[in-house]
């Protein structure tokens, strides 16, 4: 209790709840306590308004158009690319490829970068804390081309051991693929150190930044990372859009991903030549309205002191962690130092689904299940956990509601 009070005192950030219409609604007559932002964040009115305003006054298809609206829309779309570049501090705008989400960004690297390089027996290093989106694309290369997946374990507290990484990277390693931040444990990978070790052996590194880009700072130049994937809907932005950062030198040599309009230089009956990056990887009409929403979301986040947001989220996590510490029927999964604001736990004799159902009737939205991280569940000897995840709009009252609802669940099920 002492710790909680102290943490709350240093947390001066005021969550901008008024920007999120949905947060004022009620669920079964109780105020919504949204603790599922790791699955998807709510969207501030600034993002929704930017999209609507754009669609109502400046919309047309992009590129190839000579007319005014097409020019405006193209400017907005390319402006969004520049916003992402700034957000990730990429050196050049053409290192940013728009995708439909984080999953597609990773698949793009698997199909266009890695697949042509893989010989049977070649290795891909990944960790047991990866999301399925950073696992299954590599399983494809195992199934189809004989790649070997090398798994780096986490310690019992969920932290990563850089020496274990180093040991896993060998002469046959063709890529290291690691989450910047785990969506279950909250563990933040020591990306810079991983890149240094991997590059020392000539191995490129992809980071799954779907969570990391939201809660940590990702400076791709400082990290010297080869690929970094983000997804819009977790960044307080729209669904249907994500982005891949790729070093120019990689993107230039990569084969196309999907085929279609915009990604070609020339098409005849007999052959086809391809456009330069990033167009080469953006076949078809891109998520135009969504790009405007993503840029608005990035702007929105830039309106806050990110260190203050991070401290706020950390204080919520710490408060929740302290509040559940005395409960002998609850086991937290993931306690790594410096972890992000995600609290996953198992409850003795109570299945995560039952817990989540009861919490839901209290207005508390949490996720229950394997969180698309089955190998991690296996690692911790369980099939599912309950997960509360915090975002910039959450409050200490949310934490209190969570804890109260947990006690209620215990009373019903325990």
């Amino acid at each position: 209790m002492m710790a909680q009070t102290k943490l709350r005192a240093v947390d001066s950030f005021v969550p901008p709840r008024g920007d999120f219409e949905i947060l004022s609604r009620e669920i079964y007559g109780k105020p919504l306590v949204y603790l599922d932002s790791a699955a998807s964040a709510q969207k501030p009115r600034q993002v929704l308004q930017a999209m609507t305003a754009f669609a109502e006054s400046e919309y047309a298809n992009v590129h190839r158009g000579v007319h005014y609206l097409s020019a405006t829309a193209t400017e907005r779309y390319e402006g969004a690319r520049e916003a992402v570049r700034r957000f990730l501090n990429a050196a050049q705008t053409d290192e940013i490829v728009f995708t439909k989400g984080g999953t597609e960004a990773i698949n793009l690297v698997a199909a266009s970068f890695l697949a042509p390089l893989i010989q049977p027996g070649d290795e891909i290093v990944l960790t047991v804390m990866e999301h399925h989106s950073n696992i299954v694309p590599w399983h494809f290369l195992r199934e189809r081309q004989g790649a070997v997946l090398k798994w780096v374990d986490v310690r019992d507290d969920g932290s990563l051991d850089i020496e274990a990484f180093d040991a896993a990277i060998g002469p046959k390693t063709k890529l290291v693929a690691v989450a910047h931040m785990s969506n279950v444990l909250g563990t933040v990978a020591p990306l810079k150190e991983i890149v240094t070790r991997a590059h020392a052996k000539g191995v490129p590194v992809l980071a799954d930044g779907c969570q990391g880009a939201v809660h940590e700072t990702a400076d791709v130049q400082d990290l010297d990372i080869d690929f970094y994937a983000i997804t819009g809907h977790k960044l307080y932005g729209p669904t249907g859009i994500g982005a891949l950062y790729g070093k120019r030198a990689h993107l230039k040599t990569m084969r196309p991903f999907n085929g279609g309009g915009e990604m070609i230089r020339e098409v005849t009956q007999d052959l086809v030549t391809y456009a330069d990056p990033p167009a080469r990887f953006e076949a078809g009409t891109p998520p135009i309205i969504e790009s405007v929403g993503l840029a608005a979301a990035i702007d929105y986040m830039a309106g806050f002191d990110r260190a203050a947001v991070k401290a706020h989220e950390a204080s919520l996590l710490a408060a929740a962690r302290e509040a559940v510490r005395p409960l002998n029927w609850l086991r937290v999964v993931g306690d790594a130092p410096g972890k992000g604001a995600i609290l996953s736990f198992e409850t003795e004799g109570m299945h995560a689904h039952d817990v989540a159902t009861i919490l839901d009737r209290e207005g508390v939205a949490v996720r229950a299940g394997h969180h698309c991280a089955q190998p991690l569940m296996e690692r911790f000897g369980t099939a599912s956990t309950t997960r509360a995840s915090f975002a910039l709009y959450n409050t200490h009252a949310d934490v209190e509601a969570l804890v109260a609802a947990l006690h209620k669940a215990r009373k019903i099920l325990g």
Partner: protein
Amino acid sequence: MDDSLRELYQEVILDHSRHPRHFGPLEAATHEGEGHNPLCGDRVKIYLVVDDAGRIADIKFEGKGCAISQASASLMTDMIAGRTVAEAEKLMDGFLHMVKGEDAMDLVGDDRERLDIMAGVSAFPMRVKCATLAWHTMKSALEHGMAAKTT
């Protein structure tokens, strides 16, 4: 406390889930099925012994899952043992209608009464799959015999 919650987690259900009947493997099984709830990763295995007369002579289940899926599996095995395959399937139809909040007219008498404790699930659409997992697995086991083992 919320009425629908009380109905969902009534004592009989919690009791079934904490002390499941017919739990464990069945060496002599003539039919086996494995079911999987993609929502949570939960899994259930159903073992059946069907005799020459088409009667379910024995049935057991294994698996881990939420209170609803465990109670449902336990209740199902309890009720189905001794019935014919056709009767079991009819019971299943009634049950499926009931947990979806639809008309379950073919459920009558004692069957209706016993299954009624699961009716509260219909107020929780996201949990219907938990309640029906064991039943679907039973059905697929009956259809595919030992082959369903690996699905």
